[in-house]
């Protein structure tokens, strides 16, 4: 095992330990899933030949590429979906804030005495104070 592999393994296990400690039992299932993925990753870091063997099975040259291709595809898609979700959440929040603003709108003052105010339509959100 070379120096880079050792460093990567330390990083992976460090991150898992850090997450277990800081999250303290919250999101336990997500942590288990994360740990499983990291253990899988650690396996291929420790035994890169296994990854290469798998890669050759499907006609990819290097084990690293075998792992990277699906991960990149997944990440690009994930980032697009996240952006869309953020956009939709923003629109929902806007509608909610607007509904609150309109429901709580108030009216100050009135037209000058020479003009009658518009007929109240009953739909008006404003209340005279």
């Amino acid at each position, binding site marked *: 095992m070379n120096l880079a592999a050792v460093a990567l393994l330390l990083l992976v296990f460090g991150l898992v330990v850090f997450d277990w400690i800081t999250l303290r039992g919250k999101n336990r299932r997500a942590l288990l899933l994360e740990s499983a993925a990291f253990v899988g990753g650690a396996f291929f870091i420790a035994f890169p030949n296994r990854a290469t063997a798998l890669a050759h099975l499907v006609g990819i040259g290097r084990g690293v590429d075998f792992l990277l291709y699906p991960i990149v595809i997944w990440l690009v898609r994930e980032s697009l979906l996240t*952006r*869309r979700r953020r*956009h*939709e959440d*923003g*629109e929902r*929040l*806007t509608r909610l*804030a*607007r509904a*609150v*603003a*309109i429901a*709580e*709108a*108030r*009216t*100050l*003052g*009135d*037209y*000058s005495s*020479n*003009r009658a*105010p*518009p*007929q109240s*339509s009953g*739909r*008006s*959100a*404003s209340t005279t*104070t």
Partner: protein
Amino acid sequence: MSLAVLIPAYNDVAPLARTLRALGERADEAGGVTVFLVDDGSEPAIDPEALPHANLRVVLARHPMNLGQGAALETARQLALREEPFDAYVTMDADGQHRAEDVLSLARAIADGADVAFGNRFLGDSNVPRMRAAILRAARVFEWAITGLRLADAHNGLRAFSGRALARIAIHQNRMAHATEIKQQVSRAGPLVVVEVPVTVRYTRESLAKGQTSLGALVIVRDLFLHYLFGEHE
């Protein structure tokens, strides 16, 4: 003529108060003015007591958080459309760079039969800073390309609408891209009479500090693209 003035406001009360006072002084000339003022989550909240409303009727609404000028304008639009129809609806900024007399001349254009009147800074004698003017020239070409509407002034908060025109636009762009979006919608709304009216915009230190920066142009393009990708399209 009955006039609705739509004003999005954020934080700075002093120029807003000056704007309201100037509108109040001209209210009789306009035949009565209702201001639909949306406080876009100012901190602290705009105090109704601090707003001069002599001669005006002011409908004040407050966003619980800051959403952006486009969002505030849309709230004002929806508030205005809940009431009996006005003869003209004018949008203006709260930072003191727009003049009450220009609001009236835009409203007059609507009374004279236009559906949409855009204020044009370059026809009036505005002191547009040179850098700003250069960006606006580029923006004019960009907007012509994507909206199909050829206007001399690309981004100006002074606009007027007839009731039927206002009912046909709906602003989804919460931030500065709403100006472009409004033009897109006007251009797609079908046969509307669109005119440009000369206005004078006074650039002051406070309006420049609050206004758009050159970087803002890039943010607008990004927001338009995001809406193109993810937004609701009727």
